[in-house]
């Protein structure tokens, strides 16, 4: 059964890059070319979404593949410009009170949902208090301070907060907090709402049909409230499990857009040679993410700071960036992505010094962990990330890199469910290599990873290294409510310095995704949220 033998190869390829949990980009102010031709109306844009979402319940599940479709249908109160400053969307204006505890949104008028119901402040109130706050997975962080939404009239929604929440204003786009229709949800359990897979929103495209395993169709919303938009008649999302075939669909022109590295990094160089295609790394500015190593400090050697530092010194992050990520991304210097402009700093303990191997070996020698006769000091198991074959490549490199300082690494590959259980419930691991989204603000990414209160058995992607530092707990608590930007910067600089010194995790690459598009498609990437915002101004050349 030769087919059978090879099925495992193919399967690992099909889950490649399965989860675009987050991304990072660098340039801050990209622009479309100045001589942009006049938009053409009509046409069907085909985009590749990978993997196929399991559900479209965007208000209750925050998997990275859902918003590429859901943000065409659902809208948020705000959107963001290239400088990540809030811009009007369903809210035409807003005002934050000086104490940061009251936010007043003035809403657009004449907006209707796809089912014909008018959009009013009651929908905003219901979406936030009855749906998002109750069932959205990130609500316990992002909406923790929200007490109530008052609706003095149909066009005004007043958010009342217990404490200032500076990060909340960065989460008002459809990607994070979509507005749903009250009349559709009222009196139902939001987790089993019948519109979970037939979304009804106010967006430029209406949900039409979903052929599971193949494609999903969205048609132009004729009654869209922004005059003249959208330009496209239809968007079709195609689901192709195999990475090679996804590339082929772009090369033949069958598909026009593939975001979030739906096309393997390895194929991107070839795509660039194709005259009908082009690539961009823009549109990922608001989705920072790091690839990291989690270290289980319950392991007898990993509880020593010096051992963790030695591991950090042993790894050549530029090598990983160049060979595992095919040149995309930046070597990470600490726990925060460079995307957090202003809050990020590289003034920390640097592990990319020229004599790093020497330092690493000395640290281990001094820790009383001499090399044995075979040159090995001790053994560690590395849990290979199951979300794609690039992580196996990374694991293979790490095995080589740590061998240089006398640590023998044994790779363990298991499927996603088994891996997650081992790393976050059974804690039966030494090193795990996840890829962590950093969210809209350090509050999301840092707090769950380094607060001692986030050591929570059975919860995925939280503090499983058992890191507990009262100083960090205090600083992260302060960063949460500090509204003065300068003070906030100071707090997070300190956090980064302490964490890089303690090295509870090893930070590898500040991840950069890439979009491939057909040159006939224009205006596809119009803001820092990229494919996580509507293609309302996108258009196709005839």
């Amino acid at each position, binding site marked *: *059964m030769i087919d059978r033998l*090879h099925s495992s190869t193919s399967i690992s390829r099909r889950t490649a890059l399965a989860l675009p949990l987050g991304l990072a980009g660098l340039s801050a102010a990209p622009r479309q070319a100045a001589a942009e031709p006049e938009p053409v109306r009509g046409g069907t844009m085909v985009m590749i979404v990978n993997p196929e979402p399991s*559900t479209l319940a965007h208000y209750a599940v925050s998997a990275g593949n859902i918003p590429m479709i859901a943000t065409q249908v659902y809208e948020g109160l705000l959107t963001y410009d290239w400088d990540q400053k809030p811009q009007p969307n369903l809210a035409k204006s807003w005002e934050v009170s000086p104490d940061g505890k009251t936010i007043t949104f003035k809403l657009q008028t004449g907006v209707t949902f796809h089912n014909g119901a008018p959009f009013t402040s009651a929908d905003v109130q219901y979406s936030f208090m009855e749906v998002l706050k109750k069932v959205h997975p990130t609500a316990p962080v992002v909406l923790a301070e929200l007490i109530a939404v008052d609706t003095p009239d149909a066009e005004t929604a007043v958010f009342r907060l217990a404490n200032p929440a500076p990060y909340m204003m960065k989460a008002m786009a459809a990607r994070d907090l979509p507005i749903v229709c009250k009349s559709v949800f009222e009196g139902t359990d939001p987790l089993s709402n019948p519109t979970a897979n037939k979304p009804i929103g106010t967006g430029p495209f209406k949900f039409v049909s979903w052929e599971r395993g*193949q494609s999903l169709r969205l048609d132009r919303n004729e009654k869209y409230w922004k005059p003249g938009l959208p330009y496209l008649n239809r968007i*079709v999302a195609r689901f192709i499990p*195999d990475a090679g075939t996804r590339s*082929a669909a772009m090369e033949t022109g069958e598909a026009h857009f593939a975001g979030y590295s739906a096309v393997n990094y390895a194929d991107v160089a070839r795509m660039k040679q194709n005259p009908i295609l082009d690539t961009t790394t823009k549109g990922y500015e608001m989705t920072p993410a790091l690839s990291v190593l989690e270290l289980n400090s319950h392991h007898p050697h990993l509880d020593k700071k010096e051992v963790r530092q030695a591991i950090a010194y042993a790894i050549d992050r530029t090598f990983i960036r160049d060979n595992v990520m095919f040149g995309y991304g930046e070597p990470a210097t600490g726990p925060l992505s460079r995307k957090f402009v202003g809050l990020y700093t590289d003034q920390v303990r640097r592990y990319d010094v020229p004599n790093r191997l020497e330092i690493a070996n000395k640290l281990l020698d001094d820790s009383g962990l001499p090399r044995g006769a075979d040159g090995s000091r001790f053994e560690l198991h590395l849990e290979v990330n199951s979300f794609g074959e690039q992580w196996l490549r990374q694991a293979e490199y790490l095995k080589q890199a740590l061998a240089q300082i006398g640590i023998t690494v044994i790779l363990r590959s298991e499927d996603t469910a088994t891996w997650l259980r081992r790393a976050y419930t059974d804690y039966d691991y030494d090193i795990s290599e996840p890829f*962590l989204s950093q969210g809209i603000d350090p509050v999301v990414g840092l707090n769950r990873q380094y607060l001692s209160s986030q050591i929570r058995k059975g919860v995925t992607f939280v503090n499983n290294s058992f890191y507990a530092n009262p100083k960090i707990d205090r600083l992260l608590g302060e960063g949460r409510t500090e509204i003065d930007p300068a003070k906030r910067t100071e707090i997070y600089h300190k956090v980064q310095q302490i964490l890089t010194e303690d090295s509870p995790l090893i930070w590898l690459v500040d991840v950069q995704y890439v979009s491939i598009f057909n040159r006939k498609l224009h205006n596809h990437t119009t803001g820092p949220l990229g494919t996580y915002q509507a293609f309302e101004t996108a258009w196709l050349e005839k």
Partner: protein
Amino acid sequence: MRLARYLGYRLLLAVPVILGIIVLNFFLIHAAPGDAASVLAGESGAATPEYMALLRHKFGLDQPLSTQFAVYLLNMAHLDLGYSFRNDSPVLELILDRLGPTLLLMLTAFVVAVLLGSLLGVLAASGRNGWRDNLISLASLVAYATPGFWLGLMMIVVFAINLAWLPTSGLDTVGADNEGWDEVIDIARHLVMPATALSLFYLALYARVMRASMLEQTGMDYVTTARAKGQTERRIIFGHVLRNALLTVVTMAGVQAGNLIGGSIVVETVFGWPGIGTLAFNALQSRDLNLLLGIFFVSACLVVVVNLIVDLVYVTLDPRIEI
């Protein structure tokens, strides 16, 4: 009448088989580590214990295994395959959506493999050790040794990208809104490459089996008798030898009908074909137990039915076999 009684008897026998499969699958699947809630939360990137408890309660994962099993058996007794919480959709609906494309692909590949494979086997055997035999043997060896996914990708490169004759993937051209014959032709164009990739391995296998079987039969006494009666070679091959030689291929085809369901995962993946194989793989990855059990149930039924059909074909081919 006798046929009806036989069919009834066989279907009755199928009941304990399928029941056994249901019970075995249920406990095997529950023995796998990890659950749907943790996978779902893992994909979300972040989740609170409250959110995960909420999910587990909704999925019924907080119940003892014995209770889950009792509920499952009760549902199955009503032929209710349950609800896939991950997909927010009834299991039966998900499977039925995929069953059509799977059957289309499987049957096409199956028919092509059996017919063409047998034909090539006959051609090779009748020209034994000649150029025809050598060419067919060599080609079938190559086809037999070529991995399906590689063949699929290479076909995409040649026929979709370079020559632009065929579409790369999918069941039909999405958003084209074809109707009538246009739609049939559209689907057929999409079917060519996956069906070829899936059938080639079996085609090669049947060609080799058929050749060996033909050669074996040629030495039998009844062939000598037929030849002594002065029958033409053509009539001997197609009237006598072929019929007997086919029995081996039919036996093999019956066994491999089950494999086709499993083997199609790779081909479905490469060609983005919306079939049962990828659905099952995703369900396993995400520990979507209801869906997985539903697929196993439907596949088991399919295999039972195919085997029944094969046994009936047997009777038609060889009158010595009685039902």
